[in-house]
């Protein structure tokens, strides 16, 4: 059988959701692909010098400029008339939502034919679970600790997909590692788009979210089934695809299995927060028509 384009032997934690996401994305993109990655778990675990897990050309420069590096690659390929080569950026949520945001905005604006894939593990996991703009409401991180004065992250998650849509990006989608067929299809769709594309893949982090061993896929599935993670697809700014949720589950099913939400079930005021998170899920379901 054919070897995966993402080789084994990488140093990601046992049970991490991210390598599955990368494997599926590369699977869909195929070998004729150039990948640029910003700093993050992926860069650190896949390229411990002098080794590399990548079986496609891969480049890393800085935390903030992967989108700019990929823009250069794309322009060079265009100059040499090698337009059949796919250009991908695969980065984490820290570099996508916070640090590399300016370069991404520039990439979208200039209209490069690049697919930007964000594997979203909802905090800076590589450096020890610091809050990012992607961290959901009231999740515990090391920079938003819980206690008498705090119930975790005070801000809701930034809606990066909506920001990409607002840039006029031709293809924007959210995906989950629990739905591999959907994810692969979305990557293929994005590569045929005439211009930039943005795909955000939910990839649970076993150490940062602190859930049980072997539960990464189940966590991502629960996020979809509770409507906290709507799987949506925009083509030219129009919502064309929504993954319907057959049986909507209460958000507690998702939150109670994770250590980062443990305080909500004990601390004073936790019940109100749970009601707020449930309201967010209900709002998602209503906004995107997730339920039949």
């Amino acid at each position, binding site marked *: 059988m054919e070897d995966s384009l993402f080789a*084994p*032997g990488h140093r990601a934690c046992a049970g991490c959701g991210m390598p599955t996401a990368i494997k599926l994305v590369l699977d869909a993109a195929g070998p004729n692909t150039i990948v640029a990655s910003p700093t993050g778990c992926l860069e650190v675990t896949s390229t411990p010098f002098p080794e590399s897990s990548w079986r496609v050309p891969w480049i890393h420069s800085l935390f903030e400029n992967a989108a700019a590096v990929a823009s250069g690659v794309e322009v060079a390929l265009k100059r040499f008339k090698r337009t059949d080569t796919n250009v991908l950026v695969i980065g984490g949520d820290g570099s996508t939502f916070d640090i590399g945001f300016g370069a991404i905005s520039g990439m979208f604006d200039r209209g490069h034919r690049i697919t930007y894939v964000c594997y979203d593990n909802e905090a800076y996991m590589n450096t020890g679970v610091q809050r990012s703009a992607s961290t959901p409401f009231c999740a515990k991180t090391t920079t938003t600790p819980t206690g008498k004065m705090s119930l975790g992250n005070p801000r809701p998650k930034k809606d990066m997909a909506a920001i990409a849509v607002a840039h006029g990006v031709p293809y924007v989608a959210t995906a989950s590692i629990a739905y591999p067929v959907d994810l692969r299809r979305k990557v293929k769709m994005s590569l045929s788009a005439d211009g930039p594309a943005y795909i955000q893949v939910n990839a649970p982090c076993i150490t940062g979210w602190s859930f049980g061993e072997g539960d990464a896929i189940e966590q991502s599935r629960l996020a979809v089934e509770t409507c906290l993670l709507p799987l949506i697809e925009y083509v030219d700014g129009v919502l064309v695809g929504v993954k319907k949720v057959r049986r909507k589950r209460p958000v507690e099913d998702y939150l109670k299995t994770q250590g980062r939400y443990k305080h909500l079930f004990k601390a004073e005021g936790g019940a109100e927060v749970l009601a707020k998170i449930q309201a967010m899920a209900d709002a998602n379901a209503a906004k995107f028509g997730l339920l039949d």
Partner: protein
Amino acid sequence: MTRCQVRMVVEPGSTEITKTGAWRTFVPIFDHDKCIKCSLCEIYCPESCIHQIEGNFVPDLDYCKGCSLCAHECPRGAITMILEEK
């Protein structure tokens, strides 16, 4: 003048020299009779180390970190994790 040369380009897929199987505590045991060949274990495996060999799915224990993701996702419960004695 001496120039310091650092090889910044490394071989593709070269992490294969690192056998992450040494991380493992629990080892997946596959029951090939229960298996319905849905290939979900192969698709989900974060190490890309489950391969279909002569029809059966087999983990490459050189790289399997024993994360038990395959055992949790198997729809038939054909994979069980047992404590590995080394």
